[in-house]
């Protein structure tokens, strides 16, 4: 046991990346005949059971590892893992700081209930669901842990290609239609990512984030202009992932078309964009980055507030419940980015708290919506009058809880999170804008969700005769309950969580400590290569 602990102590960051990838390989080896199990097929039922066990066990272990990393990060340790013992900045490093640890924990907090939900039947409606799911987790963990810009690109590709396949899981015409859009958009974004990276490499001569931060701060004149252009190109790329205005149009249709567990997992995909924006624009182009400092500040806040407002308008106009929740995702990303775009540690801390909350709530809502749609016969998740759901009280209360939580009504954590964002902006020039937008968006979120609730639960027609609809299975609903328990836990433990996010924001602003930790006391650094040896 001690030996296992010692290995983890030394290799913690890379283990979190290796675990899902090895699990995926095992799942591929177990094999998947596809579709057979759903029709009560012969021996694939046994394999399906094994796939579920392996996937759930791995996710559980991943959650434990992630919790361990948060515990270590909360001691203030900044762990740098040099792959292959190559010294930074020449080799690739994984960096475990408070932000990375928190995001990895968030992945598993979302992934575990989602996986549990998927084992209720969705995983048998296509092939290799569990393997692809694990590859998705691997890409997400890697993206959050890496300390190298090009490695970030590679992990982006891993998580994207897994997400392409997951999006198509269950197939069907609508999924392929949205799949083509999603894939083409993300491939163009990847091309832009490479352009931005190559420009940054050309002026800094390095790809390591810590080293890049040092180099960017020293740039002057036309090189600084090039670096700023690269920063804004990267902002476009990450803005597309995070679904910022004007790059969010792909999200509602795509998420609504995806199967419920996939959409719930995708709730964390927008946070990859948010995370990358924080990494590049706080660590590399932070406040003390010389002429290139805060290159994105002029764009980020207006884009964020517009996103929030347009997202909630979309939610008001949505004609299906899936789109409604997807638009709420867009809106919440806007609120998060507003805190990030104000570039003060206090607002960032509040945004991080709100990130945790909104991801969990949105994921839960995606699952809940499918449970409601399943009991409404032909109407499905369309917002039009239909016969009543079979369990109006249970589902109605769950919907009420989720809606109040998403809109930010006290005493649920949505309220705490929004209050923190409002409070932290006190005294800043943008305060009136932020308050107006956040409060109005909260109000319209209630209106939008109330509209959905009224149509689904009160605007009912007599049930068709003989159409016996079964109630929701306890197993599927328990996944939604898990998200609700998490939401409540987040509210109850608001103080320690806030302390953690406060420390995270402080750690992110201390760029010198980050550079020291990654590059060592020797201060190894590279420069643009010009041919002299």
């Amino acid at each position, binding site marked *: 046991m001690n030996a296992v602990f010692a290995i983890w102590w030394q290799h913690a960051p890379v283990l979190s990346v290796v675990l899902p990838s090895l699990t995926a390989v095992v799942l591929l080896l177990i094999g998947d005949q596809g579709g057979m199990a759903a029709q009560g097929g012969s021996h694939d039922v046994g394999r399906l059971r094994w796939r579920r066990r392996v996937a759930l066990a791995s996710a559980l272990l991943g959650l434990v590892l992630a919790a361990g990393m948060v515990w270590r990060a909360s001691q203030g340790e900044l762990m740098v893992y040099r792959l292959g013992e190559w010294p930074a900045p020449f080799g690739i490093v994984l960096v475990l700081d408070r932000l990375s640890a928190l995001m990895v924990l968030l992945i598993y907090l979302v992934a575990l209930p989602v996986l549990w939900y998927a084992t209720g039947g969705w995983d048998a409606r296509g092939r290799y669901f569990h393997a692809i799911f694990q590859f998705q987790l691997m890409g997400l963990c890697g993206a959050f842990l890496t300390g190298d810009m090009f490695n970030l690109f590679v992990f982006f590709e891993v998580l994207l290609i897994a997400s*392409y396949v997951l999006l198509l899981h269950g197939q069907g*015409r609508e999924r*392929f239609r949205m799949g*083509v859009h999603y894939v083409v958009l993300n491939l163009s974004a990847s091309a832009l990512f490479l352009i931005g990276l190559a420009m940054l490499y050309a002026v800094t001569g390095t790809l390591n984030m810590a080293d890049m931060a040092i180099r960017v701060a020293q740039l002057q004149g036309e090189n600084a202009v090039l670096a700023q252009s690269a920063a804004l190109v990267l902002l476009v790329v990450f803005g597309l992932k995070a679904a910022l205005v004007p790059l969010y149009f792909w999200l509602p249709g795509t998420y609504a078309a995806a199967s419920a567990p996939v959409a719930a997992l995708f709730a964390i995909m927008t946070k990859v964009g948010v995370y990358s924006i924080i990494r590049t624009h706080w660590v590399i182009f932070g406040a003390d980055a010389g002429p290139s400092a805060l290159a994105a500040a002029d764009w980020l806040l207006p884009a964020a507030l517009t996103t929030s407002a347009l997202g909630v308008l979309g939610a008001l106009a949505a004609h299906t419940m899936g789109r409604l929740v997807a638009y709420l995702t867009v809106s919440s990303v806007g609120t998060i980015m507003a805190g990030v775009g104000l570039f003060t540690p206090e607002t960032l801390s509040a945004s991080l708290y709100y990130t945790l909350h909104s991801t969990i709530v949105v994921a839960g809502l995606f699952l809940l919506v499918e449970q409601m749609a399943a009991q409404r016969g032909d109407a499905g998740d369309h917002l039009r009058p239909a016969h009543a759901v079979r369990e109006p009280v249970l589902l109605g209360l769950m919907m009420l809880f989720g809606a109040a939580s998403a809109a930010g009504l006290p005493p649920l954590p949505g309220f705490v999170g929004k209050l923190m964002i409002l409070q932290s902006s006190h005294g800043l020039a943008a305060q009136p804008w932020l308050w107006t937008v956040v409060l109005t968006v909260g109000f319209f979120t209630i209106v939008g969700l109330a509209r959905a609730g009224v149509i689904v639960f009160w605007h009912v027609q007599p049930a068709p005769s003989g159409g016996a609809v079964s109630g929701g299975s306890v197993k599927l609903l328990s996944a939604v309950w898990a998200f609700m328990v998490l939401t409540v836990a987040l509210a109850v433990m608001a103080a320690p969580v806030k302390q953690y996010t406060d420390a995270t924001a402080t750690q992110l602003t201390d760029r010198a400590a980050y550079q020291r930790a990654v590059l060592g006391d020797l201060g190894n650094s590279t420069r643009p290569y010009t041919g002299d040896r």
Partner: protein
Amino acid sequence: MISMEALLASGLGVVTATGVYLMLRGRTFPVVLGLTLVGYAVNVFIFVMGRLWTNANPLLVGEGPVADPLPQALVLTAIVIGFATTGFVIELALRSRHESGTDHVDGLEPKSGEGAR
């Protein structure tokens, strides 16, 4: 005399513009071609971001200047990922064509929209 830099830059510009034009077309095949062209342009762009070298060793051999090796490694990674994603998007386009009966990117023929759902 046109410098090598100007020649490459304008060449990349033309290829990128062609790729973007093709990506904005309504059928999946030109879109895939456009993605491929943009991918080529980006790969060359990464490569030249390590500066243009003439008469330099590609590897650390003997005396004399050596070309920057890092963009070469980066571009290899980008090419591999580009191949994989292009393969995927072609297969996806074919499946989409099969499912919807049209190769339009929206899955609907523009003029005959009614009843197509």
